[in-house]
């Protein structure tokens, strides 16, 4: 059954081609730093901004709306992809970047106000999450994207003091990893009604609180930093207004981690065929962790390579 809150998350009627960003954008933007996106294509700023965003696979609407605001003239297709057509004529080429990330949704709301989670993505399809992926939640702050606002919460962890004298810690003692089934989210509520009063319902997206960290020489650490910096490079290349050879379709795609990369497949089916297809990607250290690190110097190089490709050089 589709609830009102589900419709709200999509920003309008489910199949509306002209759906407004409206409420969803407000929800999303209220949770973000107020970094103004200039048209000058500052890849550092874009990478930082994108790394601050949350786009749980299949639930990327908020980031999509943000990208549409960044690129006037872009469109959102039925799958949720953001596409922008540059130039005209042939050859007709496609440059893509996947937006989405492995994340969570609220799976259940308990009578005492705690939330339980279901992971979305990372369960197969060529991209299986590490056994430690869910452990990153334990004892950390998360953001629950409710229908009215981004709600801060934390994932419960045992108090270290109360384990004393109860858990064997010697060599060979059981030391099981933390799994999503143990992830009780505490938003400070004491009842299910209080949770619902915050605009939180089953299926609300949830992610680790995003606080990208710049360190070293232009290193950016954040969950999914590699993907986000690659998308930032593509966005910066487009903002630089390249002299495109033929037609280049730029697509920021959804659901790359689910349903056989349905977002990209949809773009190909609707806007193809294409003479050439490229996907933005950057090498990342500590992949799939909250400290995933990308070198922004690599993003600079990617911007140049994308522009050269678009210009047919």
């Amino acid at each position, binding site marked *: 059954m589709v609830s009102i809150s589900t419709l709200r998350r999509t920003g309008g009627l489910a199949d509306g081609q002209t759906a407004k960003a409206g409420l969803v954008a407000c929800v999303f933007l209220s949770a973000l730093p107020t970094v103004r996106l200039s048209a000058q294509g500052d890849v550092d700023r874009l990478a930082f901004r994108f790394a601050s965003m949350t786009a749980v696979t299949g639930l990327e609407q908020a980031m999509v709306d943000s990208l549409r605001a960044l690129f006037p003239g872009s469109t959102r297709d039925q799958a949720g992809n953001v596409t922008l057509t540059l130039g005209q004529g042939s050859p007709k080429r496609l440059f893509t970047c996947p937006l989405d990330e492995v994340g969570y949704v609220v799976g259940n709301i308990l009578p005492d106000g705690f939330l339980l989670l279901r992971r979305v993505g990372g369960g197969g399809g060529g991209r299986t999450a590490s056994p430690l992926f869910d*452990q990153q939640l334990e004892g950390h702050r998360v953001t629950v994207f409710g229908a009215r606002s981004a709600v801060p919460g934390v994932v419960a962890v045992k108090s270290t*003091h109360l384990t004393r004298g109860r858990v064997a810690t010697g060599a060979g003692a059981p030391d099981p990893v933390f799994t999503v089934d143990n992830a009780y989210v505490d938003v400070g509520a004491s009842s299910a009604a209080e949770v619902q009063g915050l605009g939180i319902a089953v299926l609300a997206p949830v992610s680790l609180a995003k606080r990208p960290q710049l*360190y070293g020489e232009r290193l950016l650490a954040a969950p999914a930093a590699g993907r986000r910096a690659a998308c930032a490079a593509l966005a910066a290349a487009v903002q630089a207004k390249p002299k495109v050879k033929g037609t280049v379709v730029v697509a920021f795609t959804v659901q790359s981690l689910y349903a056989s990369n349905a977002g990209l497949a949809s773009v190909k089916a609707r806007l193809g065929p294409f003479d050439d297809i490229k996907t933005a990607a950057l090498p990342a250290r500590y992949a799939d962790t909250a400290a995933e690190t990308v070198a922004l110097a690599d993003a600079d190089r990617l911007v140049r390579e994308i522009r050269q490709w678009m210009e047919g050089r």
Partner: protein
Amino acid sequence: MRAVVAATALLTALPACRLAAQDSTRIAEAQAVLAPLVESYGVSGAEGPVREAVKRLLPAWAVPSTDTAGNLVVRVGQGDPVVVFIAHLDEIGFRVTGIRDDGALELETRGGFFPSLFEAKPALVHTDQGDVAGVFLPRDSGFTRRTPPPLRVSVGTASRAATMARGVSPGQTVTMPKQYIRLTGTRATGRSFDDRVGSAAQLMALRRLDRAALKHQVVFIWSVREEIGLEGAEAAAASLGTTPRRVYAIDTFVSADSPLELPSFAVAPIGRGAVARALDNSSVTPPAYVDSLVQVARARGVALQVGTTNGGNDGSVFTPYGVVDVPIGWPLRYSHSPAEVIDLKDVVSLADMIRAVAETW
């Protein structure tokens, strides 16, 4: 780079210290005192920033002094019997023990906690010239175990020399970035509520204290190095000797108010007031003193729970001098984690309890 780090921290801030529309004056006061303490860094042995934050928040009339151990002390009133309130300034974290050839930092823990909570998370190295950003490195292997091998930190360098050029050296402390964040209602989350809440409550009590009502001298201490063995309190206790009659350790009551905890003890729900920490791993409060505490609370209309939990408290090192330890806490969820949760109502209750005890007992 440090400017960038600072900007990063600023720009990523959620509406951290928002005042909820329904906040009472007291809740707003508790938040105003607590938030800057929580957002100060002070691993055991490096409590300077927190001590300075406490000094800034003292009432104008208070004359603080710092003893040789680093404890901050404020004395109020005159005469016997002297009573002592003590809350600790320090927080758990790491200390740099070495710098590897590849530039990564080797660490030792300061205090007890689950190291997995820091693995693959942002890091801050606290240097004399400011904070240097980095990351706690994820393990290379060992996916089947929850606990990682000893943690290391990268500050984004590839050699020992490059790391040292950033001002990093052995002996410095390491934590992760933290923020005070309001949750729903009167609840809040952050790291190092243990024992910034105690420190804040002492400040709030001092601000409202009726000094003319005091019948004896009251010594307020903000202690150092509690998490690594009550070291600051030991120095204070030795200095005061047999002079005090009672010591009130103002510290966390680690609560089982969580779906992950056993309800066999430590049952003090958050939001229901301060807690007489009548039995822990370091001390047992004589029952008559627990009764007196309850009596004071009732007389003043202050919410007070009574319970038993784990952990030690600063007051316990005063007992060899014949001083009675009467620990008072507040309930805390998820202790020693980056996501501790409190209820601000309990901070108010704790402050009122301290004031009531100082003025009437």
